């Protein structure tokens, strides 16, 4: 596919890299020459310098032949304008990033009247993900599939975990627990779990299960599952705003610390139930005073990644609560991973997953559309949900008879409201939602799982 990306910020770069690896032809537009060069020096993409919302620049970038335009500059207005201009000129689909909630609430209008295919809000997506882990704090991350009926949940096996030393087969034999083990990360290695795999403490494992079963499982592996009752949030930006809204009815009491007075006041005026504190968290006394030691969760959401990391490391020392850290800009994924900071949220990756899913489902829609896509381990293992359509090669054949490619796991079948953890004799039927976990990245179609 020919894809044009307007805006070469962090999200733009992540998208360009990801979509280029998937085999798409990428053209990036940015008004700053250095930003364009930063992309074209690293990624096999064409660069155009100029205002991406203008007709001339879009024409230079080849809008007529483009299949998809993604506008991810820092300015919402520019993104929306770029999408509208593109729509006038060509048949391409358009995706715009819209951060401000004023515009985002209008997204139905943007889609229906202005023809945008997708309106993305990384801040909202990040806030939703944080809200999910707060409800289930022993999990590192929770990704909903099949409209929330099943979840892909990541845990770190705690110290003294009762299943450590057991193989997967033994565990499944001993416990009546309807979960499917998907992946394991140990040190630098990441695999799809096989039957003879032995669990060890500190492994990060992911499972697919219904929400209730996932909760049961977390108790089995030694977590005392208490829902979070109160949380401290540092930083009062857009994510905080969405998070406060998402948690309004959950009864979790929130305390937001924001350095900037105007932002603190704005937040306080929009959310009357939360406590807003105007203070600078560079001073560790402040955090102690606001009760970091007792808080059920500590969420670092400032605009500065380094600050978020330091604050979370500090909170890790001081409290036993849930930690959530937002990382916007910096890479160093491996280093951050080793810090064992419970949950780390990368808005740019969330967005990249959403767009990659969209791009793939636009391209390959023979046997089944991609419903959800989530990279379980970045660049290595991904989980994809398909709806199986009529005429698909995988339908009507027992799983044991299907010649699956190496490194592919059919993790779950959703038939109506029922979850089937698939065994060899199970059969995929038309209309099922099938979740596939695979070491082969870039699966576009359910038929891609076959040899």
């Amino acid at each position, binding site marked *: 596919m020919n894809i044009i990306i307007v805006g070469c910020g962090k999200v733009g770069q992540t998208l360009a890299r990801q979509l280029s690896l998937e085999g798409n*032809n990428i053209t990036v537009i940015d008004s700053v020459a250095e930003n364009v060069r930063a992309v074209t020096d*690293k990624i096999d993409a064409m660069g155009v310098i100029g205002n991406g919302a203008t007709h001339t620049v879009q024409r230079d970038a080849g809008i007529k032949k483009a299949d998809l335009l993604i506008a991810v500059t820092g300015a919402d207005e520019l993104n929306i304008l770029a999408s509208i201009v593109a729509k006038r000129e060509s048949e391409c689909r358009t995706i715009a990033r819209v951060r401000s909630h004023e515009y985002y609430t209008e997204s139905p209008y943007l889609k229906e009247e202005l023809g945008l295919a997708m309106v993305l809000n990384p801040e909202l997506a990040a806030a939703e993900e944080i809200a999910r882990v707060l409800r289930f704090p022993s999990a590192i991350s929770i990704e909903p599939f099949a409209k929330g009926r099943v979840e892909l949940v990541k845990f770190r096996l705690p110290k003294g975990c009762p299943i450590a030393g057991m193989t997967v087969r033994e565990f499944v034999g001993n416990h009546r627990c309807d979960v499917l083990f998907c992946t394991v990360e140990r040190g630098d290695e990441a695999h799809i779990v096989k039957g003879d795999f032995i669990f060890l403490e500190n492994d990060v494992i992911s499972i697919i299960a219904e929400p209730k079963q996932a909760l049961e499982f977390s108790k089995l592996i030694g977590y005392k599952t208490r829902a979070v009752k109160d949380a401290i949030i540092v930083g009062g930006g857009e994510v905080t705003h969405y998070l406060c809204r998402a948690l309004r009815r959950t009864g979790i009491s929130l305390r937001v610390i924001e350095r900037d007075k105007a932002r603190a006041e704005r937040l306080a005026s929009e959310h009357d139930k939360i406590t807003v504190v105007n203070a600078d968290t560079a001073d560790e006394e402040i955090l102690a005073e606001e009760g970091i030691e007792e808080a059920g969760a500590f969420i670092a959401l400032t605009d500065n990644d380094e600050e978020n990391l330091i604050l979370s490391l500090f909170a890790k020392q001081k409290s036993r609560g849930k930690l959530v850290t937002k990382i916007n800009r910096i890479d160093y994924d491996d280093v951050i991973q080793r810090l064992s900071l419970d949950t780390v949220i990368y808005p740019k990756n969330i967005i990249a997953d959403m767009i990659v899913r969209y791009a793939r489902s636009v391209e390959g829609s023979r046997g089944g559309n991609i419903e959800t896509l989530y990279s379980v381990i970045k660049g290595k293992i991904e989980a994809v949900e398909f709806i199986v359509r009529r005429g698909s090669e995988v339908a009507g054949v027992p799983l044991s008879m299907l010649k699956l490619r190496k490194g592919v796991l059919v993790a779950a079948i959703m038939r109506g409201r029922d979850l089937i953890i698939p065994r060899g004799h199970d059969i995929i039927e038309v209309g099922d939602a099938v979740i596939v976990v695979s070491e082969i990245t870039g699966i576009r179609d359910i038929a891609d799982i076959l040899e």
Partner: protein
Amino acid sequence: MNFKMIRYTLGIILLFLSGFFAIPAVTAAVYAEWPSLLAFLGTAALTVALGVLMTYRRPKNTKLYARDGLVIVSLSWIVISLFGSLPFIFSGSITSFVDALFETVSGFTTTGASILPAVEDMPRSINLWRCFTHWVGGMGVLVFVMAILPLSGAENMYIMKAESPGPEVSKLVPRVKKTAIILYAIYIALTVVNVLLLLPEMPLYDAACTVFGTAGTGGFGIYNDSIAGFSPYVQIVVTVFMLIFSVNFNSYYLVLRARFKEAFTSEVITFICIVAAAIVIVTLNLYFGGIFTALGEALRHAAFTVSSLISTTGFAISNFNDWPTLSKTVLVSVMFIGACAGSTGGGFKVSRIVILFKGMTRELGAILRPRQIKKITVDRRPVDHEVVRSVNAYLVTYVLIFVFSVFLISFDNYDAGGYNEMVTNFTAVSAAFNNIGPGLEAVGPTQNFAFFSPFSKLVLIFDMLAGRLELFPMLLLFSPTTWKRSKI
């Protein structure tokens, strides 16, 4: 430095090179030139063996940075020149190694300067190989590899930038591979058209050799008198195609896309203007100077020679060494200007001249109105400061290498046979460095480079490679930091 990946890439280049030997080998078989056939097959076998050895193990770390890309490009050119010269030695056509290397480098860099006094005595397959090196070197070996191999990643852009001439190398389409394919498709199409136009006048072998020399803007001839023996029709076709191959290939792509306005960039227009002006001056000078009595004759000779030198091809239909000083001055000037960026031609490149000229007028303006802000724009787009800076650095490096080369060559105590040695040395370096071929006086169009000492030839070999790869990749090989394992 990722030495393993450099080794691997060079291995791939060798495998490709061995494929190129097929064409002269078939020619040798057709004309029953058995020693040459053996020489080509032997070289091919050697190249394949080494290539397989070097590519046997694919390195784990395939990451290449700008520096690695530049080193790969310059080493590739040295390696293909070394192996490309083997058929000359194996077949006994050229006995001295330095001479064989000179001839091959001159071929691949599309210079066309020869050390052979009588090319007609050479086996046909060897002559074809000489001309074919022009064609391969014209658009670039690595660009060819990129068009075929399934490479991905932006690293390859570094390689493409290093091999394609011009201050700013841009892609035509998002993918490097696709860009390389398009460039080669245009190149091949133009080559075929050129051959078809020549076929009514000459046999396929002659047409192929002439067109290889024209397309790569090389200039090796297969007759002692270059193109002079061919009919005026052939000469006119060659004139037109030399000019066609010295225009930026991006323009042809834009024409194919029906974006005519964009195709006529200020570079192309400037190029056309310079060519036209030079032809007019030389024609009038020749006509009134009494060299030719008919105006049409003067025009044909002037147009051919100007096109041959500005495109840095180096074909000749007349001994322009005997022309009036004004004509010779114009010819030497266009030698330095050279072709457009992104073409197969060499020289300083018209686009750099345009940027330098605009930079000069801006400086002049800055003296008159110190507080005025003015950006250099080309084709109504502001030129990046980086580009302006790199063009300035290019000019300085260009002059330095040029002067130093002339200095090194002047140590040579050759017998000039009554020719002016100063002019000979100056134009010999100019002809090698700008990838033209013939110069003036002792290296004039009817002469050759055989009389230089091996040391001078090595200097000229460096100049040819540096000129073709636009200076910096070759200079980088001489910088100690390039070869350090650590990156500091």
